[in-house]
């Protein structure tokens, strides 16, 4: 099955099995490995990407469902410069193993796009679906609050 969609700003066409998921299509067919496999069941959020600007779990998103739509992955988040969240992630030294961080950043970026100044409660409820085993949550929160307060996004 052929599917065409916009990926990080450019049109792409992929040939996959009819029921292929966006996650494995991104990682293996399109070689964008920044999006991670963690659970395959929308339980951990490591595979989070943006679909038309909204955070979705790519492990449960059939690639057929993104035809004609726009997908942004962690590789496509930065423009000329890093996204303010990526900068804040570096400033706050957030990642440890780093495996979940693509998902964390994409989830946070979708939040700030919809609501540039979320309060702490909203951040926590929005970020709660993305797991981090290294325990970087307090730094993730700090980094998001930093961007939200700076008004840079």
């Amino acid at each position: 099955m052929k599917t065409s969609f916009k990926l990080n700003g450019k049109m792409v066409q992929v040939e996959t099995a009819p029921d292929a998921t966006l996650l494995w299509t991104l990682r293996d067919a399109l070689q964008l490995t920044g999006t991670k496999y963690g659970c395959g069941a929308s339980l951990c959020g490591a595979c989070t990407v943006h679909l038309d600007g909204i955070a979705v779990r790519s492990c449960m998103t059939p690639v057929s469902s993104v035809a004609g739509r726009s997908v942004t992955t962690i590789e496509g988040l930065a423009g000329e410069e890093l996204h303010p969240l990526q900068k804040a992630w570096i400033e706050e030294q957030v990642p440890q193993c780093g495996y979940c961080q693509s998902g964390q950043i994409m989830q946070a970026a979708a939040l700030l796009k919809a609501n540039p100044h979320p309060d702490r409660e909203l951040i926590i409820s929005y970020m709660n679906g993305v797991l981090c085993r290294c325990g970087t949550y307090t730094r993730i929160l700090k980094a998001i609050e930093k961007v939200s307060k700076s008004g840079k996004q």
Partner: protein
Amino acid sequence: MNNKKEGRAHPMSRRQFMLTAGGFSFAVTAGAIAPRFLGDPEPAASSGDQQLTAWVKITADGKITIYNPAAEMGQGSMTALAAILAEEMDADWDKVTIEYSPVEPGIYGMQWNGTPGGPMITAGSRTVRGYYKPLRQAGAKARYVLLYNAAKKWGLPQSGLKTDRGYVIDPAGGRKLSYGEIASFAQIPPSVPEINEQDLKKPEQFRLIGQIIPRYDIPEKTTGRAKFGIDFSLPDMVYAAIARAPVYGSTPELLNENEVRTSDGLVDLVKMDHGIGVVANTFEQALKAKKRMQIRWSGEARAKGYDSVEDYKSLELLIRDENKKGRMVVDTGDAPSNIQSAYKIYEREYRTDYLYHAQMEPLNAVIHIAADGKSAEAWAGTQAPDTERNAIAKVLGLDESKVTFHNCYSGGGFGRRQEDFSLEAAMLAKQVRRPLKLIWTREDDIQYGAFRPMSLQRMEAGVDRDGHLTGWQHRIAGPDNRLQTGGVRMNYYTIPNQQTEHRVSHPGVRTAFWRSVGHGPNKFAQEAFIDEIAHDLQIDPYEYRRRMMKDLPRHLALLDKAAALSGWGKSPAPGRAYGMAFSDYGGSYTSGVVEISLDQESGQIKVHKVWAAVDAGVVVQPDNAIAQMEGGIVMGISSVLQESITFKNGQVQQSNFHDYPILRMADCPESIEISLMPSSLPPTSLGELSLPLMGGAITNAFLKLTGKALRHMPFTPAKVLEVLSK
């Protein structure tokens, strides 16, 4: 390298050179032993002007490459090790790049019991501790060689020269040479003196050690560019999944092979003792074919019928049997008779369930066997690359030197990332003979996990009239002798007459190192027991610990620091309580306090705040040390409040994050405050130090809040309600 210039009759092997020359050299062209991936250009052929190096390479453009021998799985040591070397070399940190070292344990192995060249294992929080001295010496030797060459060039005595951030300086002549310039003409001196402690920098001269150095790996971990093992791919690669024994030790028989072989994209099926591998063109095709397999499992598996909840009953019989003797770990004085004759005797039992690692990157490996079958190359994130390489070599019937293993970033390790995945990938590739990537699904990762063993711990103690401990007995029962006695010694409390023993059970399930290993369960039992005794004696648990530390100023200072940070002694907000605990790990010490509340109706405990003071000797990377403490605390709370693996009929009952929940952001403490104690002692362990605090601190806060003790981890709402109703 240039043996002739050294005037040797016989050329030395590269390995000999690196060992004898102290592990440094220069490269004016690309280094051939630098890690290389398939598809990279071939390194330049070895020539007279090329020098190869073990730990550090300098090129004429001034770029300094430092080789990292340890796994990078989130603990940050790849930055720390490079900083240690760069410090003594007086290198310009901005010019440093870090690469994984080749898998050569003879050169890059851990300093083990004082001897370098042990295994290349990243475990036990030993990395910075173990490599601190050899890397300082390697850095100092590299600096010596730079000084030697500059002195020769200028025709000056070496003693008059200095170094500063990447330059050799001639103060008298007002000249300087950059390290890169020196690399373009440098020669290895005929001999390099031994570096002694007095030749190294004094702590007040440190420019990198103890400063906030941003972690080298963090930028690429925010852009998706960081390559984990699971991210590697090769041309013409196929994908594999394995259906493994649901009861460990049973063997498979595929009942519908013909049907499964018709699956879309199927490349091959591989029968193994412990499972059946499915190899397909895409990973999703492999998963689909795996689902179609009907497998009959048989064989005399020891774990058959095993029930881990019921197992506590057999462990009770095992631990309470006064005629049995297990393995004695600590035996000082005469604990039994001093307890018997004590003014008051205490007895308690504590339980901990099996735990799963839940590293976010499921296990995986990529392997490629050369077309002639005479060599192989593999990629994976592992804590033990040499073990991995050797296992692959064994499966393929190759000499170890014919297997090139590339360690990759690990998406979490926690003790799990070693052993089985590379071995399995080799077994699959041996039959399939294509470049192959094996991925464990999350379900595979949990159901064929290797767990922190369950434990039942029986504590007995006696006190005199004043409440002083006069004897202490700690018995541990559980399935793994090597994993369950860590942390039983408490050299930070003065307790006479101690006895600790382990009694082993044989459930036949897989167990493994799990962050902090024995310290997690054992510190929980010790610290909870101490608070229960203090509670009964109506002594403040902080004061009670102070009494046992009165002759131990280093530990007392730490205890006092954590108490001061938390404001111990002040009244907490209504419905809240403080609990404290003390722990050690790998020569480091920590004291922590938690503030908790309890939802009486649901039984849910919430940890609001955590304070911890740390004494870990010289801290190479303070901010990373704090991050490690924070991470251990969060993982600790997770394991204490909600994690449990159970077996029924020999099978793991959990399968993904819905039934093996790990802590989410909403359940994370609002604040974690870490204080690092200044020290001039050599660095000691950090990665596993804070986790063991949480079991004791949380149950101790609960005891303060409710007057009742939680003695079975995890403290789930159901267990909390049960304890409250008693």
